[in-house]
């Protein structure tokens, strides 16, 4: 029979708590037969963030982001919690908006206008451009090395 071993950390002094959900059902967690780092499940992006760029701008999700700068109408800058080691990291920003019937999205790598794509290892700009810069209710950024 395979066994489960819980192991503490000799260097740390904090305590880690596993909590049960509010349920009346019996649940089973089946672990995969491979090494998994829960700090990087699925090798996910280092930065996954989304803001509502309308009204008082607010972050809806902010993994890997310390703040966002509301630069102007339709212009935003995601500031990373930790710098990437090079500015050639992968980044993809999209703008989601609602047309007459449903939600749509648009990759914002728009080169026909004057989008500001400048970025550093510490931040990345995202713009929402449709004839002119316009605020969007959902502005997302994925970035990873």
């Amino acid at each position, binding site marked *: 029979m395979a066994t489960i071993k819980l192991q503490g950390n000799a260097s740390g002094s904090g305590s880690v708590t596993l909590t049960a959900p509010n349920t009346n059902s019996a649940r089973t967690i089946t672990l995969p037969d491979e090494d998994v780092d829960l700090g990087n499940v699925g090798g996910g992006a280092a930065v996954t963030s989304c803001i509502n760029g*309308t009204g008082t701008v607010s972050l809806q999700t902010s993994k890997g*982001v310390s703040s966002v700068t509301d630069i*102007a109408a339709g212009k935003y800058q995601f500031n990373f919690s930790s*710098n990437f080691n090079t500015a050639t990291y992968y980044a993809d920003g999209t703008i989601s908006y609602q047309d007459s019937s449903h939600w749509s999205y648009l990759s914002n790598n728009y080169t026909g206008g004057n989008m500001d794509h400048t970025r550093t290892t510490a931040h990345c700009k995202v713009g929402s451009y449709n004839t002119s810069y316009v605020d969007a209710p959902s502005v997302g950024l994925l970035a990873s090395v």
Partner: protein
Amino acid sequence: MGKYRVIFEDPEQPEQPAMVLVPSDNWLEEAKAGLLPPISVYWALQDDEQQAIAEGRHDTFKHDPEKHAAQWTAPRIGPLTEEEAIEYLIMKDIPRHIWSVEYNRPMFKIVKTADVPSDRQFRNAWRLAA
């Protein structure tokens, strides 16, 4: 949602409207838990990158591995209050010439979130009140 926002202007871009820094709630929790490195770690990275940009070698630029790793390996500075965390964030995420140089008027202000206008009709005309 955090209690504060930072409104700032860039004196090097006088045509640019006032900008608003919106802190991440997750990051604020990390700051309050004492998980941040000294701010000098980020400044060292900024300095190296700015020098690479000035010298026209940003396309091949890579951070020094030791300085880059310091973001995780440097001793933590301990728990911050939300107000201290905002001050830290200003020094990390707002360009240094905005907050480190004295101008003839303030270039940034920490304000309550509720004080930031939600009406963005004239967003590109926002200015920092004296």
